[in-house]
């Protein structure tokens, strides 16, 4: 915060040096122009932050909820956006090649712990509420929480399943079901284990063998969607009547008129986090933006326009917002949190097991 927001101060030596070249010619007529080059205001030196998100509707909502208001409040800050943050290999490639173009990145719970910390800048936890929310560490701060839930066609299934055991019951609910085909924290193993009678607080570490045995029982009725959006699209198209979906994506389709509902019981909670890649060029500005996006005051701004719950436990979303019914906040029913450390350490095994099981 040193040279930021101190309107009355004289420009620092560095600002004069930076702005000096372009302004030298004008020095005689307007002494201050030299200090304030293009894009710089007297309020502070101009800053630039590159924010990388998942793209799509979520990132558009983040722009509206956080980035645009932040730039209005801080006219000297310019936020540039990029997409593709779920591709963690890009972070690794940037850090290892020493050419880090992202300053602040929205990542999932399967990134940012354990050995990934070597790829990240430690956060300034005096500024940022690093550990206030679920899964937060000095390297990643919780941004928002999403839920994987049972999704169903409201027109085809008048009495939706209330538990995963019912969801797995082909007698009660004939027809196909969709999962997102990925070995990460999206609920494949957890739902199978819950359906098989594992208590909801005893899911981790996952009994993978048991989960696959349960999945065997409905193998021929499963459709493996290539992306999470496709699980919802398969529901909307009528290709399946039941699916394991992210509530936020179900909301997006339901809002457009698709006959899709979600069941708030035995749902999985995952979090997205903000991280700063090691060697980020605008580290300090990124810290400040991260603090704004994740504090109790501003964090819920996203939940009011996009159905994810705040990452900060004290941030309160607006209960009258249209999104409220689809966001995992203040809902009854049992829930579990994805154990991100478990997923980070067992990724390889899980991916291999899933591929082998699918191959049979």
């Amino acid at each position: 915060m040193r040279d930021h927001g101190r309107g009355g101060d004289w420009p620092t030596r560095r600002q004069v040096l930076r702005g000096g070249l372009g302004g030298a010619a004008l020095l005689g007529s307007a002494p201050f122009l030299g200090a304030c080059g293009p894009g710089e205001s007297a309020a502070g030196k101009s800053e630039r932050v590159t924010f990388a998100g998942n793209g799509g509707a979520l990132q558009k909502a983040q722009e509206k909820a956080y980035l645009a208001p932040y730039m209005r409040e801080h006219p000297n800050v310019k936020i540039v956006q990029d997409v593709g943050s779920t591709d963690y290999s890009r972070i690794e490639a940037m850090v290892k090649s020493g050419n880090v173009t992202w300053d602040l990145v929205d990542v999932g719970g399967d990134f940012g712990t354990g050995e990934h910390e070597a790829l990240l800048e430690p956060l300034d936890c005096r500024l940022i509420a690093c550990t206030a929310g679920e899964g937060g560490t000095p390297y990643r701060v919780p941004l928002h929480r999403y839920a994987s839930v049972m999704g169903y066609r409201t027109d085809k299934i008048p009495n939706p399943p209330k538990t995963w055991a019912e969801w797995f019951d082909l007698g009660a609910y004939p027809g196909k079901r969709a999962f997102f085909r990925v070995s990460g924290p999206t609920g494949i193993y957890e739902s199978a284990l819950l359906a098989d009678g594992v208590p909801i607080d005893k899911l981790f570490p996952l009994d993978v063998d048991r989960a696959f045995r349960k999945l065997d029982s409905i193998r021929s009725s499963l459709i493996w969607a290539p992306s999470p959006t496709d699980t919802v699209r398969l529901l909307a198209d009528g290709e399946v009547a039941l699916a394991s979906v992210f509530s936020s994506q179900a909301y997006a389709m339901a809002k457009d008129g698709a006959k899709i509902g979600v069941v708030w019981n035995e749902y999985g909670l995952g979090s997205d986090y903000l991280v700063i890649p090691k060697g980020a060029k605008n580290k300090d500005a990124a810290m400040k933006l991260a603090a704004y996006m994740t504090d109790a005051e501003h964090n819920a701004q996203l939940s009011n326009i996009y159905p994810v719950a705040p990452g900060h436990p004290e941030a309160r979303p607006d209960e009258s917002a249209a999104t409220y019914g689809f966001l995992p906040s203040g809902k009854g029913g049992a829930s579990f949190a994805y154990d991100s450390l478990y997923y980070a350490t067992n990724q390889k095994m899980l991916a291999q097991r899933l591929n082998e099981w699918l191959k049979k």
Partner: protein
Amino acid sequence: MLALTGRMTVKRLRGWGLLAAPGILFLLVLFGWPLADMAILSLTTPSPSNYAVFAESPVYLDAYVTTFVVALVTTGACLLLGYPYAYLMHTGGRTLALILGFFVLLPFWSSILVRTFAWSVWLQDTGIVNTTLLDAGVIDRPLPLIRNALGTTIGMTHVLLPFMVLSLYAGMRRIDPNLTRAAMSLGASPLTAFRRIFLPLSMAGIYAGSLIVLVISLGFYLTPAVLGDPGKPLIGQLIVEQVTGQLNFGVGGALGVVLLVATLAVVWAGTWLVDLRSVMGYEE
């Protein structure tokens, strides 16, 4: 002899040949180096043990087999569809060639992602094809058109057909039309003239098109992910999973290197069948 060719090469380079330098540099820096880097990564991150992945799980070797089978089938399908199309472009006159050529190039104007998802709308159980057939009473349960090898082949053939058609057409244009005319004037039926004269002369185009389609097929991952059998991934899908899903550049690199070697082996085996120079359009 060697000295003579050497001097001729230098002579060529001194002239217009130098114009190729940016292209060569471009390929070396942006293609050669990343490939070498991938090979190095596969041996050093963390060690050559990356290659042990083949012993760990049968998934990977199976994926190579699936990949080559799918690539061969796709190449065959492209050839079957593309040859008559290119032949019509070649023989149908200027206007028809322009119109047909336009339709070949049309797919390049939309993204592969859009085209692949459009196919899923057509092929799925509640898709356009199955709903129409069900409504017409032709079938009483949806045909399995998607999430299997058929879906992958349809999607990939759609993407790769233009490469085949353009290669075939380029090859056919090099055939002297007088040769088939001469054959017919000597009493050959049109069919015989085609079979004995035109078809053999168009082989260069067939080989060129097949090689291009086969090699591009080997790297597909999006189309099989959307339209294919989730239990039989192509090697491209597994490489993506290793690199983007698990940050495992080493194993991803190893899978890539093996794919590269296998591809080169296929191309090399191809040279036993075909003279590569004829594929490149070299005329002796």
